[in-house]
């Protein structure tokens, strides 16, 4: 190990490796916020070059959770591949299934019955709320507030119970499949869902009081890791990270897929400080905005679910013929609005029933690539704040 020898003669501090340091500058450290670190959600490794507490360079290294999902995609029929899509963004299984199903339906040209589309919207939005609850809770943990995590998971538990009552699983549902949904809703489902929404909506304001507008939380996150709108677009950041930088771009609104054009809801985007309900020191595109956009999105999702429950019709819950359908010699690229950003599926068929190439564009893959650009010059304690606000899931980042 490198021992630093203080040559008493020369006034210069020479390191045994012989690196001459000009004056008595503090030692630059290469610190490894390694794959197993409480602040990196999952197995992200960030190599930090720091001078004291100041971070000079923060290079993210990924690939620790790479399970070659795309190679497997070239061996399985589409309906067999659905369970793999659950494991990509394991906090938003429903949305992943929906993305892959829409891609295949568009490629093959399957018509999804209306009731299935309503059920898909309800479950996608419920999963969005559950995913944002996890993001809200773990962000509180990164900032050192342990309590909001427990409240967020208590509410998420109810959503998982609803999922379990429908498709039997709590995390990897494989419920939305090609042509619709796996099976119909249990009969008292809508009443219990209504009961949950009535219980949950006032809770959002309670969370805001507890964490989002807490003075210390604001001081830790406002004006930290600011991403300008131009940078967000050039680095292809999507989802709450893009909207927090002031870009009004949400696929459910801008290019509505399925039946999202039937519901009216608005898109929360980042607001500068001084506005009503926004602390003064907040800047568009900082960590606080990324956090609060997620919290407001939860409220919008509740609105969507209520409208979907009102407009839901009866009918079949899945299209007729789904198994060993032949994929045309064609390619398709479809993106939908995942809780963490735009999850894109590129599927290329070659006439047989097994796709020739399946490419997954994970939002976390692009969102985390901006860490080095944003992390320059911030403090060591800000790195968890930035990574937590970008809210990455390594499953879809490494695939």
């Amino acid at each position, binding site marked *: *190990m490198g021992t630093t020898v203080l040559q008493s003669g020369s006034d210069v501090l020479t390191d045994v490796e012989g690196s001459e340091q000009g004056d008595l500058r503090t030692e630059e*450290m290469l*610190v*490894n916020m390694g794959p197993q*670190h*409480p*602040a990196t959600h999952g197995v992200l490794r960030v190599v930090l070059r720091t001078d*004291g*507490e100041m971070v000079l360079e923060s290079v993210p290294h990924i690939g620790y959770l790479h399970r070659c999902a795309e190679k497997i995609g070239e061996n399985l029929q589409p309906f067999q591949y659905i369970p793999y899509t659950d494991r990509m963004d394991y906090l938003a299984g429903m949305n992943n299934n929906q993305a892959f199903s829409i891609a295949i339906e568009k490629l093959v040209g399957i018509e999804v019955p209306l009731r299935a589309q309503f059920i898909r919207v309800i479950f996608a939005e419920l999963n969005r709320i559950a995913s944002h609850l996890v993001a809200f809770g773990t962000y*509180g*943990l*990164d*900032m*050192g*507030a*342990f*309590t909001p*995590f*427990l*409240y967020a998971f*208590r509410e998420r*538990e*109810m959503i998982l*119970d*609803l999922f*379990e*009552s*429908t498709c039997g699983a709590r995390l990897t549902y494989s419920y939305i499949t090609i042509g619709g949904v796996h099976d119909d809703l*249990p*009969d*008292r*489902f809508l009443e*219990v869902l209504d*009961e*949950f929404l009535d*219980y949950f909506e006032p809770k959002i304001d309670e969370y805001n009081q*507890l*964490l989002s507008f*807490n003075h*210390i*939380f604001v*001081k*830790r996150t406002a004006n930290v890791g600011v991403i300008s709108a131009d940078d967000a677009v050039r680095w292809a950041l999507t989802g709450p990270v893009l909207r927090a930088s002031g870009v009004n771009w949400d696929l459910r609104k801008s290019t509505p897929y399925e039946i999202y054009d039937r519901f009216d809801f608005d898109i929360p985007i980042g607001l500068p400080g001084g506005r009503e309900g926004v602390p003064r020191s907040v800047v568009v595109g900082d960590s606080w905005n990324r956090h609060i956009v997620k919290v407001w999105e939860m409220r919008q999702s509740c609105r969507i679910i209520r409208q979907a429950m009102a407009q839901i019709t009866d009918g079949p819950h899945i299209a007729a013929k789904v198994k060993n359908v032949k994929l045309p010699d064609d390619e398709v690229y479809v993106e939908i609005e995942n809780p963490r950003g735009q999850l894109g599926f590129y599927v290329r068929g070659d006439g047989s029933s097994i796709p020739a190439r399946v490419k997954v564009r994970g939002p976390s893959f692009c969102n985390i690539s901006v860490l080095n650009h944003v992390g320059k010059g911030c*403090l*060591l*304690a*800000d*790195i*968890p704040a930035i990574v937590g606000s970008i809210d990455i899931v390594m499953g879809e980042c490494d695939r």
Partner: protein
Amino acid sequence: MTRMSVPWRPGGKQVHRGPAALVAGIAKALYATFAPLVRAFPGPLLIGAIVAVIVGVWINYLVFEFVDDSLVASSTNLAGETGLLGGPLALGEVRAGLTTSGVPGSGILCYVLYPLQYGVVRDVVSMGGILGFISVIPLYTIWWERKVAGRIQSRTGPMRVGGWHGWSQSMADGIKLICKEDLCPASADRPLFKLAPYLAFVPAILAFFALPFGTYWVFRQVDVALVFILAMLGIEVIGVILAGWASNNKWSVYGAMREACQMVSYEIPMGMALLIPIMVVGSLSLTTVGDTQSEGWTSWIVFRSPFTFAAAVAYFVAALANCKRAPFDLPESESELVAGFHTEYSGFRWSLFFFGEYAAMFVVSGLCVILFLGAWYSPLPMSLADRWGLGDSVGARAIKGLLFAGPLWFVAKCVFLLYVQIWIRWTLPRIRIDQVLYACIQVLLPLMMVLLLGHTLYELFVPVHGFVWTVFNLVLSLIGAVFVLGMIFIATYGFWNRVGLVGSLGVETLPGS
């Protein structure tokens, strides 16, 4: 792979040899007899144990006093000095003294009282009480913190170990930690690595030597008690820094660096905040400071002037930072530094840090109670006790101890301050290191200077018990009373209609789920 010679074989019956077999046998027998007893009614046992400790120390004091009065009276050549080794009285003289003063069963009692003449025996006995109390405090503060944290986070906290509400959870953790293998990283600076936990733990214990629990309840009546305790809290910093530095781990070095600047910078505002009550009383000895607040809660120093009121709050904030408690717990912030300075520690050494932190928490809240919140005096004034004619008989002193002034009040107030520290930890997030230093140097320090100056002028120019003085005193006392009554009201209201833990929405009743 060479098979490690492990004394116990997985699944096999544990084999003890020599003295260990004896000890194991005794332990099993004890466990067999007492475990059902403890499991039967743990609640009363727990509370009984605490009361027993306090009554025990009280009786110990009474016995000392009795020994002095009776023996001094009966013997002629005694000069009142109970030296370390040379005992003034022989056994026979003790028995004669006791029989003359008509004490029942003096035959046996003299054997008990004879050794108590020596100062060293008394010190050993009272030190046993002190060390017993000190090891009880961290044990139950840890358990209580986990219960309070559970309640705040709408879960229940430990419920299983030892029966009622898992009261012996931290004791079990302590035993587990002692049995765990405590590693020392290969590249660590081994002697320093081993020394650091003791430097962090022992000063917190030594601080208890000078911390008075009552007018006569102090192990060593140091005339500079306050400065002595501050010195002990200062030494703890070195233990933490050496720990961070010696474990040769980049994250621990960060923890140690943060620790260094935070603790050193917060000692200054903490010291200045403590100056104000000293200015009021004029002596550094905590017993004198405590005894000047005996005239009911309006005489407490915190309600004396707006400056002391603000100083109490500022002191509490600085004390939080000094004990590395949230929101200032940067040195061992889990989310960034993994575990800060004690990342590499495990087992017994790690528990030393943990014990040191909780003991320091109690010492710091003890200082706040003594200097600001009327030490061991209850809100009822002592003059009321004299009006009720409570003399010096044991019964009267018991009532005075319970209602007016006694260690129970001191411990109760300290426990309330511990609750506030726990309450703050589980609600507030953690602040960044530059905000910690900004808060200290640009906010707390100027505030303390203003308060110090303000209070000196207040003491000089505002006549004591004058009109302005009493107005301020009454207004502040009212604020204090409203705060305490409000707390009590919220607590009872919350306890009264506490809702069962909000679980799932009864979705299991859905068919098909």
